[in-house]
């Protein structure tokens, strides 16, 4: 099944072992550099500028003045080492620069050199360093070996979030003309066409129509997949992978069935046909805001009452935590519902109110576990109580299938391991990193699989789903063992045919 790897796939043992430090184990890993066209389309210099060093240092100073988090994090680390064994990329590769604190230090040593008294006068003593080409190269490599999953920030006594440091570093690199192709090309597409895949409106309309036919054929129910319907109640903003890729599509079918069965009028917008917001990954407020504003514009244009996000981890972070900031206020929407809502919240509410019914036996052929996506787990919430992001999806899964089992406790909920492909790393030029970074999650999956014969792992994130489809075969699983939570819902949902 797996194509022959050019690197050693980590072996899964009985439990995760912290590897010894292996300097430079991943120093060959770096993503393709953005071309001038990608860079310029989103407001950055086309290639590495001549005075990059000066500009980068200045940008660093600007960012510490704009983001309190960055400023406090750069000052506060005591090198206690609590975070050193918490990153899936370190656990999977052993490269010490993948330890969260060491990753931060790549930027911190430059900050110290130019912005602190100690680093100016005693650089050796406090580990401060000049910004050289070597340092810049290290930035490019290792800030693209961080999926911004925030696992390290859970364990740091000061909450130091390496994701924030990575974002700042990427922003600095972009501002001197050293961008990452994958992210920047995609952001350009969103600005221009409306989604990450560059799927134009006509193709989207076709796809949705095709889905209507499929569902009618399979279930005999005329479930609609509306596009740009003015006056619909709900605007669904979902990752574009939901429109065409497996296993994502089955999730989209699940949402559509839920809306249909509950009698909710909804629509997708061609203007905002993408929930993903890669502006987050490159730490650039302007791009993130511009991408987020499409959603506001679409909501206004279509005159909807509610905004609902589909299954996508980082999109939910931007949706839940930032949308109100970036594109609010949303006082023109129905104030009876939070803005935005997650599809899981919607489905959960409908189950609670008895407006939809599920027959868990429909999924009796499956034995399911659940992967908490990092951005949902550690950077957002669902429902009204802290930790609802763990409870709601599990309750939905349990309502949809009879055989649900948890992975080991130190790999779920706030301790969840990233799939290995988040934060703008879901690209083929980083396959080795992705496979190795998935090791801790694969280890946990193996453990629950050995005990309970798991057939499927459900997730609520497009990146997780794509990443697992790719890496599962490397570890001896099948690529279709990863499914959408709403696939389970869709299959278990009891539909009235006369609707």
């Amino acid at each position: 099944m797996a194509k022959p790897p050019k690197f050693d796939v980590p072996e899964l043992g009985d439990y995760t072992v912290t590897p010894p430090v292996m300097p430079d184990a991943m120093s060959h890993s770096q993503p393709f550099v953005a071309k001038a066209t990608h860079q310029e389309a989103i407001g950055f210099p086309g290639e590495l500028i001549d005075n990059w060093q000066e500009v980068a240092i200045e940008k660093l100073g600007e960012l510490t003045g704009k983001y309190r988090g960055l400023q406090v994090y750069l000052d506060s680390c005591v090198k206690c080492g609590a975070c050193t064994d918490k990153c899936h990329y370190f656990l999977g590769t052993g490269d010490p620069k993948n330890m969260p604190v060491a990753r931060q230090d790549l930027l911190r040593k430059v900050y110290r050199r130019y912005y602190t008294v100690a680093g100016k006068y005693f650089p050796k003593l406090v580990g401060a360093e000049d910004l050289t080409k070597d340092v810049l190269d290290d930035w490019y490599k290792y800030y693209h070996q961080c999926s911004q999953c925030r696992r390290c920030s859970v364990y740091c006594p000061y909450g130091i979030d390496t994701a924030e440091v990575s974002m700042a570093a990427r922003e600095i690199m972009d501002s001197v003309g050293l961008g990452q192709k994958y992210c920047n090309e995609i952001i350009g597409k969103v600005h221009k066409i409306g989604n990450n895949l560059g799927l134009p409106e006509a193709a989207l309309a076709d796809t949705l129509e095709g889905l209507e036919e499929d569902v009618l054929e399979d279930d005999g129910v005329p479930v609609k997949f509306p596009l740009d319907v003015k006056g619909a109640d709900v605007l669904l903003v979902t990752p574009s992978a939901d429109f065409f890729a497996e296993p994502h599509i089955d999730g989209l079918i699940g949402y559509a069935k839920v809306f249909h069965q509950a009698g909710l009028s909804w629509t997708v917008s061609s203007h905002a046909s993408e929930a993903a917001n890669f502006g987050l990954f490159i730490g650039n407020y302007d791009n993130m805001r511009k991408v987020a504003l499409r959603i506001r514009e679409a909501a206004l244009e279509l005159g909807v009452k509610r905004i609902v996000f589909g299954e996508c981890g980082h999109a939910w972070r931007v949706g839940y935590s930032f949308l109100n900031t970036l594109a609010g206020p949303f006082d023109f929407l129905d104030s009876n519902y939070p803005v935005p809502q997650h599809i899981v919240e919607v489905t959960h509410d409908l189950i609670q109110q008895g407006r939809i019914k599920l027959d868990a036996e429909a999924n009796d052929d499956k034995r399911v576990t659940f992967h908490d996506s990092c951005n949902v787990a550690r950077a957002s919430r669902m429902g009204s109580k802290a930790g609802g992001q763990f409870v709601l999806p599990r309750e939905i899964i349990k309502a949809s299938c009879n055989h649900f089992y948890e992975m080991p406790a130190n790999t779920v909920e706030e301790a969840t391991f990233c799939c290995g492909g988040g934060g703008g790393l879901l690209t083929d030029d980083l396959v080795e990193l992705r496979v190795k970074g998935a090791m801790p999650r694969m280890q946990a999956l193996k453990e629950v699989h050995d005990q309970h014969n798991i057939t499927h792992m459900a997730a609520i994130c497009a990146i997780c789903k794509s990443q697992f489809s790719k890496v599962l075969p490397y570890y001896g699983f099948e690529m279709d063992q990863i499914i959408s939570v709403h696939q389970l819902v869709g299959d278990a949902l009891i539909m009235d045919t006369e609707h």
Partner: protein
Amino acid sequence: MGTVISVVLYLTLGVFVVGTLRRMMRYASTPAPLKIPTTPAPTTRTGVVFRLGREVVFFESLFKASKWTWLFGWLFHAGLFFVLLAHLRYFTEPVWWWVAILAPFSPYFGFMMLIGLAGLLARRFLVDRVRYISAPSDYLMLVFLMAIAGSGLLMRFELHADIVQVKQFALGLLAFEFAGLSFNPVLILHLLLVAVLMFIFPFSKLLHAPGLFFSPSRNQVDNPRERRHIARWAKSLESHSSGKSSGNSRG
């Protein structure tokens, strides 16, 4: 002697207070434009107070991360906290009652500090990951603190300082009177090390102490949907780019 030490202590205390306050003012005045609490996070202000309280008193996150680091780190900090309180006996006359109760136990607190520091230092040498991230200053800081605790304990058990004189000196400091201090090398070392520590505080990783309270991942309330959170610089983006964004809009 006493005068020199007094001047050094005043100056370094000044650097400590002014430097740390300036740093805190910088943290306070730097905006946090986005809601980034590490979730699950409290949904109310009171909840945040408790979250920070648990971090300060119990080192909650560190406990989740590494039991050994937590044990040594907590022993050291708790020891330091009580030792500092016990030192109030030099600065209060009559000695406050609860300080008087604490004072006899201060050697135990001193040993707590030493054990904690020794454990942390051993980790720095022995764990390859921690060794990798340690700069010379990280080792020095521990050695330094051990020297402070060690010199304090030494005076308690061996080379006793003249307690009555030390107290007069301390009260003198408070009253801005320069009291004499006879030459006791351990005492002088103890005081000078403390002076150096105060001096480097605002320029070093000791800033983690105020830093925790300003850390957005720990001090923010999780309520972004209920309340619009917006920084001033981000707000200004809205007014002057409104033309641009309406250009995007197809409505």
